């Protein structure tokens, strides 16, 4: 049995006090207010009434490090960038050191056959135990020729790695729902992970990029409880994707008051009014941006003056213009279409009118003598 995470940390000179602090941070990262409904844990928790931090500490003291294999397909590495530049160093530390990243194309120092070989070894060694993280969509059109790594298609690589995974985390909109590569007309036949892998637990952490804390929180949840957190119908953890951006938005009072910025440089924009009229997709976007924010809680798009694009929702790229109000229709008829519709109406009206007039001619003749004045 490999050393537990606590033992590894102890070896690195981390004190018990610092370890418990770290556990508190992890509990926070999971987004735990109370113990989640995880089989086994809940009953014990109800009896013992242990503080959450102790649960986390117990888990980290008894569990070995978590092997992770990270695959990148049709992506921009933005989710990795966001994670490595996250302003919560201890959380990145958690992901990059306390779990074992066995394979990661962007972060690996090694390259070529050696690193592919290392991946194969890791998949064998940790079969059934590792977490597979997928970043980027999977190309399925034309036998997947549009995205290959080491001469093999993304579809092939995903299926191979998924076979031995304990669970799959799809980070970013691309791997969750197909993302930008899937935008119309979707030339590469891009799909999200959950549409391809149906026999393994998949959790989606959509976003463009995914909020690093949402990713690490989900991973920490798996580390502590050995299972995935509670998911919504789009397989997103409810902890982070339970409410809309609109619901937690700092500009929400202005929405209620009917105070809107009408352009990016008018008085309303300078006063920080609601960006709904500028196309904000906050009301239909489920994500934690407004509450967790970015860069260590510094800001998020709406706070910085830009409407939400809805990047944690499927097909956000094709969901109408970014700067078009959300209530506006997705398709608009051009004048020709409206003209054709109106002309159809005129033709129908005239046709029916003429037909009726012809039919009426005879009876009018016969009823004329009965007319009284």
């Amino acid at each position, binding site marked *: 049995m490999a050393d537990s995470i606590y033992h590894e940390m102890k070896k690195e000179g981390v004190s018990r006090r610092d370890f418990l602090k770290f556990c508190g941070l992890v509990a926070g990262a999971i987004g735990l207010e109370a113990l989640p409904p995880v089989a086994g844990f809940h009953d014990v928790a109800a009896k013992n009434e242990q503080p959450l931090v102790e649960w986390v500490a117990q888990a980290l003291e008894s569990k070995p490090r978590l092997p992770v294999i990270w695959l990148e397909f049709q992506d921009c590495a933005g989710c990795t960038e966001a994670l490595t530049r996250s302003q919560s160093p201890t959380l990145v530390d958690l992901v990059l050191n306390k779990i074992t990243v066995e394979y990661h194309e962007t972060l690996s120092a090694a390259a070529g056959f050696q690193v592919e070989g290392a991946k194969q070894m890791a998949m064998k060694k940790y079969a059934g135990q590792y977490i597979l993280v997928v970043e980027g969509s999977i190309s399925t059109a034309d036998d997947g020729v549009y995205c290959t790594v080491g001469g093999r298609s993304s579809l092939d690589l995903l299926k191979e790695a998924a076979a031995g995974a304990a669970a799959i985390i799809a980070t970013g909109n691309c791997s969750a729902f197909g993302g930008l590569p899937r935008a119309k007309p979707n030339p590469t036949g891009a799909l999200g992970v959950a549409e391809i892998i149906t026999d393994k637990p998949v959790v989606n952490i959509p976003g463009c990029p995914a909020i690093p804390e949402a990713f690490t929180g989900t991973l920490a949840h798996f580390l502590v409880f050995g299972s995935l957190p509670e998911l919504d119908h789009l397989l997103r953890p409810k902890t982070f994707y339970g409410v*809309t951006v609109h*619901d937690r938005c700092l500009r929400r009072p202005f*929405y*209620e*008051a*009917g*105070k*809107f910025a*009408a352009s990016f440089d008018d008085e309303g924009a300078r006063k920080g009014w609601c960006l*709904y*009229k500028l196309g904000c997709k906050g*009301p*239909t976007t489920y994500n934690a941006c407004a509450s967790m924010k970015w860069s260590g809680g510094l800001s998020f798009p709406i706070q910085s003056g830009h409407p939400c694009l809805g990047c944690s*929702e*499927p*097909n956000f790229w094709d*969901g*109408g213009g970014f700067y*078009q*109000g*959300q*209530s*506006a*229709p*997705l*398709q*608009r*008829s051009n004048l020709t*279409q*409206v003209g054709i*519709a*109106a002309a*159809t*109406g*005129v033709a*129908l*009206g*005239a046709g*029916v*009118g003429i037909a009726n007039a012809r039919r009426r001619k005879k009876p009018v003749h016969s009823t004329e003598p009965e007319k009284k004045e």
Partner: protein
Amino acid sequence: MDWNKILEFARGPFFNVALLVFVAGMVYRLVRVVSLGWSPDRVPARGSKAKGVALSFLKGILIWPFIPWVKGTFKRNPIIYLAGGLFHLGLFVVIILGTPHMLVWKSLLGIGWPTLPLPIVDWLAAGAIVAMIILAINRVINPVLKLISGPAEWLNLLFVFLPMVTGYMMTHHLFFRYEVLYSLHMLAVDVMLIWIPVSRISHFMFYFFSKAIHGADFGKRAVTP
């Protein structure tokens, strides 16, 4: 069920088609009504027709909100008169002066306008919904109305009620997720748009015709409408 797909359909192609059907249908009705023409006027007019028309419209616009009690309809059944008025006022404010609806107009017409704060629109929407319920109850218990109410009348009520209720629930995030309610709202609106030309909801256009014709008749006879 993937509600995002349903929403995309209801906001996209379905709405577009419904709008075109609405335009074609209303133009058809308009052509049919206009082609009826004025009935021949063989009697010399005793008063000004134009004045009668102007007066008729002025009364229609001013009496309800300001002095409803001068009308017999109001005296006989004030609750129904007020419910009808409140419903129309709420509907007008919601679809013209509600921000999300103004953005729909803006995307269709290319021009936008200032809107009212949400709480005001919200209360009027709630008022309109309550008014609709009162009117529906009245239709059930009033013997004369019951007699002249066929399936079309009930469908009128239903097809207007559904967009109102789903819109209200959507604003307040009641019972279902936002995109579910948004989808239901748009589907209800689409169905209503297709229904309007074949139903009496088309009175939003023909009201002005009948007001003009009645006004001209009153003016001709030199009586106050």
